[in-house]
């Protein structure tokens, strides 16, 4: 059922994931890597789950697949936020090409020297 659509979704999803993976390797600093990975990854995963929904086309399965997509959309940004925030706050260095850092001013009172105690782990 719906063979064509599910195939497209599968390929698309996998492709997004591949992009995410390449990005995670290629991007120069943590935050830019995250742009590539966590979101493109979630998108890819979501597409693959959608493909499942389409492929089986049974109510029970479809609803579960959609729930899966929902779970991803719910959790992925929170996770990304948490990692990004923690990394930023502990001083993981930004790419030298970064043009502006407005959060830094907020924390200007303290040094932002890399805190090796945790980030180097």
């Amino acid at each position, binding site marked *: 059922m719906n063979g064509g659509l599910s195939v497209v979704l599968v390929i698309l999803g*996998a492709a997004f*994931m*591949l992009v995410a*993976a390449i990005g995670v390797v290629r991007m120069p600093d943590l935050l830019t890597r995250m742009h590539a*990975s*966590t979101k493109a*990854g979630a998108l890819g995963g979501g597409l693959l789950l959608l493909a499942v929904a389409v492929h089986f086309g049974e109510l029970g399965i479809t609803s579960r697949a959609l729930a899966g997509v929902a779970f*991803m959309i719910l959790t*992925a940004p929170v996770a990304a936020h948490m990692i990004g925030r923690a990394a930023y706050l502990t001083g993981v260095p930004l790419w030298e090409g970064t043009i502006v850092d407005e959060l830094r001013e907020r924390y200007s009172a*303290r040094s932002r020297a890399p805190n090796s105690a945790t980030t180097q782990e």
Partner: protein
Amino acid sequence: MIREWLTAVSEPILLALAMLVISFFLAFVRLLRGPTLPDRVVALDLISTLTVGMMAAYAIMTDQSVFLDVAILLALIAFLGTIAFALYVGKGRIP
């Protein structure tokens, strides 16, 4: 095995699996390289998402919906580990 790789290109779902497998290794490279813990966490998070994707693709390929259940569970739960890691990283924060 090489023939498998070749058929992968012809069979769309195998192609998808191939892309996923490559992705796994790429993400793993980041996990190895780091250099910081958050980098590794990001890589691990991606790997968990890739696992979700692979399970979904496999469910389609084998026409067995039971694997979908695993995938959605993982989609919901992998998040916990990432949060825990993030909180650990955040521990080093100056209050």
